[in-house]
């Protein structure tokens, strides 16, 4: 189907042809006046599947789910004005979490730009700060080249969303199509290989470190499955402990014995204390986010730090490191591993043994422990059962944002990369349902579960219609505490238990809602019924809305309060009295 030589076609046809040449299989979109020519071109072909959503925000999150679970860019097509502005939250989400997207927006014709035309918005202006790059194409002759450049920019270096704004007259006009090999992309070529001297210094430090830790993040996942493989080999060979950020879960298997669990604000006791007490921190593709560092001045005070990142602006941005290494995680790990082996596979064995002994003591605290109940479903219990009953299955998890998200990160185990899709940087409620549809469409036979909170889920619940229309059997596992649980937890700890607007009032009957959409609804409130209900959800051949009524006032622990260092962690309710000072309350 690849196009050879030059060929005249309309701008709208170019969009479709360029998508085909870029290997696009599916487009998530919503039509409108300013993209009618492109929809017409889509109508007249069968190679690219179009998924019609119910709201443009849903389209972008679906594309994110698709992208993160496949490693390929997600593609979105929306109209001008409100279509474009509705996409803004998704674009910002993708920018924060480094998800490659190519978003096409329609625009009023070039001769009307600037006249406040119907459905005109300054789309490139609005989206400039929330895309990696964007283009307004004013001439059909440039369109194909810009599209090929856009795919290149979205997927090279630190991935991210890009946007192409196409006025309607540019879609109608005819010009010669430029196939991908002819497009000029040479200028944007981020460095992949790390500096070998810096890598050597990293290896030297690894040879002598007494208390090392691998602190890994989404960069490992974005670098591709080979990077995760190299990381695993490195961890096994050195025997160093490893933790991951929320975005990095799955780069090292949760069942591995070097695994400490997630770190950060709701990370495990052992992971955070290892970060605090280590003498060598190997940051592989993470970015010292404030959810990770806590109070900067007290962050891991006795360690030397190595930071591998493909984005030069991430290096020394938040934490000054001893050895910054600019490059792709996969390339750097490959060089480092080869070098470490060639130098005799040295590690400081006696010190490591002591370090692991210390870690065992921290692990013994059993920080994820909670008070069980036989009368009410504890959210942690629900996730433990979900984990047990889906273990070994071809499983993908998405989440919404809130307590349920943190519990999912704590209680579900990820064995492989690209299996966990969550809104990390932006924390976008309403991400999980559409993302689960995007994942399911990319992996039709897999078990896809959105672990949701009832409040987040309502934010994009219209997308159930999309799930049903496209037979995406994604399961909506709602941990319904009838609260904006994470907000309520902060109000309890920081605002004198004044629960201002953190109730979920007038909730729908989720079972009836499922029936109204045309899928299955399951409600469960008794721990004794939970296993059967989960099995019923898994076995059902189609989307399910599972209303899991859980304990309403459960708090998510451990928790490092804002503005506190890693070693001042709260482990349970007993720890929480008056712990967060006024200074911490200012932080989010």
């Amino acid at each position, binding site marked *: 189907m690849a196009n050879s030589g030059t060929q005249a076609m309309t701008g709208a046809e170019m969009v479709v042809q360029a998508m085909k040449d870029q290997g696009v299989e599916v487009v998530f979109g919503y039509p409108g006046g300013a993209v009618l020519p492109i929809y017409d071109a889509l109508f007249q072909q069968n190679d690219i599947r179009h998924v019609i959503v119910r709201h443009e925000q849903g389209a972008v999150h679906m594309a994110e789910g698709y992208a993160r679970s496949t490693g390929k860019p997600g593609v979105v097509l929306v109209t001008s004005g409100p279509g474009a502005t509705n996409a803004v939250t998704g674009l910002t989400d993708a920018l924060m979490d480094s998800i490659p997207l190519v978003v096409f927006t329609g625009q009023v014709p070039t001769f009307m730009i600037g006249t406040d035309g119907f459905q005109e918005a300054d789309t490139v202006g609005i989206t400039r700060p929330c895309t990696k790059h964007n283009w307004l194409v004013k001439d059909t002759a440039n369109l194909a080249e810009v599209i090929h450049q856009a795919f290149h920019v979205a997927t090279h270096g630190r991935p991210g969303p890009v946007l192409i704004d196409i006025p309607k007259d540019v879609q109608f006009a005819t010009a010669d199509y430029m196939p991908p090999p002819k497009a000029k992309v040479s200028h944007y070529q981020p460095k992949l290989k790390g500096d070998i001297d810096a890598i050597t210094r990293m290896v030297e430090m690894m040879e002598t470190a007494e208390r090392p830790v691998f602190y890994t993040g989404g960069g490992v996942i974005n670098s591709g499955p080979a990077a995760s493989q190299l990381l695993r080999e490195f961890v096994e060979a050195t025997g160093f402990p490893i933790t991951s950020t929320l975005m990095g879960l799955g780069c090292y298997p949760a069942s591995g014995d070097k695994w400490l669990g997630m770190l950060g604000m709701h990370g495990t006791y052992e992971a955070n*204390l290892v970060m605090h007490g280590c003498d060598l921190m190997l940051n592989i593709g993470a970015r010292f986010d404030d959810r990770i560092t806590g109070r900067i001045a007290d962050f891991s005070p006795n360690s030397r730090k190595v930071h591998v990142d493909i984005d030069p602006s991430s290096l020394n941005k938040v934490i000054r490191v001893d050895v910054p290494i600019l490059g792709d995680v996969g390339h750097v790990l490959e060089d480092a591993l080869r070098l470490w082996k060639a130098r005799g596979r040295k590690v400081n064995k006696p010190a490591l043994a002591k370090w692991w002994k210390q870690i065992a003591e921290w692990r013994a605290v059993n920080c994820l422990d909670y008070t069980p109940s036989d009368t009410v479903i504890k959210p942690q219990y629900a996730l433990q059962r979900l984990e047990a009953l889906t273990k070994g299955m071809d499983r993908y998890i998405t989440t919404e944002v809130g307590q349920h998200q943190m519990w999912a990160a704590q209680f579900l185990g990820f064995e492989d990369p690209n299996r966990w899709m969550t809104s990390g940087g932006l924390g976008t409620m309403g991400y999980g349902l559409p993302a689960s549809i995007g994942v399911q469409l990319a992996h039709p036979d897999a078990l896809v579960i959105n672990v949701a909170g009832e409040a987040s889920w309502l934010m994009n619940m219209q997308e159930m219609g999309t799930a049903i229309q496209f037979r995406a059997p994604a399961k909506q596992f709602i941990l319904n505490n009838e609260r904006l649980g994470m907000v309520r937890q902060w109000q309890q700890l920081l605002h004198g238990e004044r629960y201002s607007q953190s109730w979920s009032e007038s909730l729908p009957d989720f079972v009836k809602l499922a029936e109204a959409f045309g899928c299955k609804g399951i409600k469960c409130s008794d721990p004794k019924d939970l296993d059967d209900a989960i099995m019923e959800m898994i076995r059902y051949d189609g989307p399910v809305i599972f209303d899991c009524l859980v304990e309403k006032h459960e708090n998510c622990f451990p928790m490092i309060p804002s503005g506190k260092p890693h070693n001042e962690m709260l482990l349970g309710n007993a720890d929480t009295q008056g712990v967060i000072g006024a200074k911490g309350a200012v932080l989010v």
Partner: protein
Amino acid sequence: MSPLNIKQGSTSHSAYDLRDPNGEVIEQHTLAVLVANESGVLARVIGLFSGRGYNIDSLTVAEVDHEGHRSRITIVTRGTPPVIEQIKAQLGRIVPVHEVHDLTVEGPSVQRELALFKVAGKGDARIEALRLAEIFRANVVDSTLESFVFEMTGTPEKIDAFAELMRPLGLREIARTGVAALARGA
């Protein structure tokens, strides 16, 4: 729970020791940014500064290579050394930015700004303004019986100094271009 006391490490070498002792000192730097002259590129650069809370003391831009469609943006900014490093890294990340040069650290450079001054006055003040303009090598580019427009090229400091002298002599308006700068030598 009481805060845990982690045993102090045997490594005395902390990352924080690496911190530049002058880390909190505010420095002024002149950056030359070479960009593809595509629409919106200036908005990207300015948006970066406002969005991330960096300072712009002066900014000039013009296409310098008409065939290659390259523009040169000269930015005078200020910040602590880590912030200056971050500004350069962030600029480098903008897709149409081809090169970022920190003229303040890359060696000696020449910095020039052009300014126009409108000075109105009569009698001794008018004569004094003209005399000072000669000393500063400012050109008269417009004159009426009651006013001059002086044109002057120089460092920002020289222009500041001239403006100070003109103020009591009837300075009405100033137009300044902002700094253009080049590294010295070949």
